[in-house]
């Protein structure tokens, strides 16, 4: 089973996770820029984080045979802090980078005017840079947040078929499907979606345009949830080809819209220049 995790925050994960992911079949991933749990207080803090997504983290991933790509954006939660808002002005220099395959995560957290501004501005940046957009749907007041998100997308220059609506669930999947956007589902141990509910949604809505991710980060989460969904799909009667579509071909097709996803990825077992992660010599 080959797996492309289209949303996982590896900055917060360990090398054991990378190894376990590789063993489970993960060969490529996208790490969206997002909130780190501790609020940032200045643009410089974002820039170091973005630089890590373009430098150190891909290097770490390569040690485990996993191709690492990222999305760059000012996340909705921190878009509300005026100290962080100037990040928007610096985004263009990041959005030209080779491994940036979308603008994201953008979207709504509390649905404030500042979030409206950041979302609209960053949808425009995506259109300007030929990138698709990864749009986070809010945890609270989710259906209203989805509708407001879709309104802003419709008003933007980015067509819905270049938008991935993420963190969907039973209450939002219908309207998201009707919008023409790509459909992202995050599988979590306790919140968001779980494997069996995901299988039920796949039975009801099919496998087209559906992406499944672990969204694993610094909170209670599981970087192997993608594999567990694949196993649950097979147990429920889906074919190997269905699993491959959801866990590999769909994320490749969506992020491939950037024109920056190398088609020769990945080489299983590859170590970067034969090296491993070393910390002081071992």
């Amino acid at each position, binding site marked *: 089973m080959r797996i492309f995790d289209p949303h996982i925050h590896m900055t917060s994960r360990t090398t054991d996770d990378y190894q376990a992911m590789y063993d489970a079949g993960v060969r490529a991933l996208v790490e969206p820029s997002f909130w780190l749990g501790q609020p940032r207080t200045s643009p410089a803090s974002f820039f170091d984080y973005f630089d890590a997504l*373009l430098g150190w983290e891909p290097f770490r991933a390569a040690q485990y045979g996993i191709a690492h790509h990222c999305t760059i954006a000012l996340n909705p939660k921190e878009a509300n802090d005026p100290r962080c808002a100037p990040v928007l002005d610096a985004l263009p220099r990041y959005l030209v980078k*080779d491994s940036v395959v979308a603008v994201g995560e953008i979207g709504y957290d509390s649905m404030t005017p500042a979030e409206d501004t950041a979302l609209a501005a960053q949808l425009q940046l995506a259109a300007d840079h030929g990138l698709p957009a990864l749009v986070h749907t809010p945890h609270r007041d989710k259906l209203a947040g989805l509708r407001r998100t879709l309104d802003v997308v419709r008003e933007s220059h980015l067509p819905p078929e270049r938008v991935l609506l993420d963190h969907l669930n039973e209450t939002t999947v219908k309207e998201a499907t009707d919008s023409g956007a790509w459909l992202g589902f995050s599988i979590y141990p306790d919140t968001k979606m779980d494997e069996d509910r995901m299988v039920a949604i796949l039975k009801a809505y099919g496998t087209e345009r559906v992406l499944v991710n672990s969204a694993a980060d610094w909170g209670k989460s599981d970087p192997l949830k993608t594999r567990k969904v694949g196993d649950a799909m097979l147990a429920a009667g889906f074919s190997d080809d269905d699993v491959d579509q959801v866990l590999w071909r769909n994320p490749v097709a969506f992020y491939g819209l950037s024109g*920056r996803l190398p088609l020769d990825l990945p080489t299983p077992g590859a170590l*970067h*220049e034969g090296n491993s992660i*070393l910390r*002081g010599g071992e």
Partner: protein
Amino acid sequence: MTPTRKELDDRLGGAARAWLDEALAEAAHAATATHGTTPCAAPPSWALRFASAGRHCGQEHADAVRTLLLHEARADVDTLTRLYHHGTAAERRAVLLALPSLVPGPQALPLVEDALRTNDTRLVAAAVGPYAAAHLAPHPWRHAVLKCLFTAVPIDAVADLPRRAHADAELARMLADYAAERTAAGRPVPADLHRVLALAVPPEES
């Protein structure tokens, strides 16, 4: 080593060659233009090409393409520093590779020192090239050699090793101490260490 333009042309497909032609023309234009750039000015078009070289020419050719662009633009230390600090690891590596032929003096050493502080072996390997051999002071140079041994960067990446290591008693002491530490831990001593040690031991001691 970095291939010539002709060698690169032979390796690139038609679309990539055309892209490179345009990129080099923009860089050449920037090199001759008498413009008053300010620190806040938008990056010149060739600098955007510098960032996107991998996806247009293939990651395997990105080092060579980026190095050519830097030469064609006659990038000075300020430009190289900006590109390095605004660059991905791949872009930073290209800047480091271009230093020996673009910066005659030690002004770009802060970039080398920055790369040597990382644990990214792509950057460490690029940092210990001919520019470091020419300009890096003995203490940080010795630590760079030791870091290569620690992080399994092949010692062949260290430029001008025989001259810099020759009869360097302090380097020999550091290597011997490292070998002793490895041995005490029951771990193998890197084969490259013995090669460097043979160079560094002063003749009267060998």
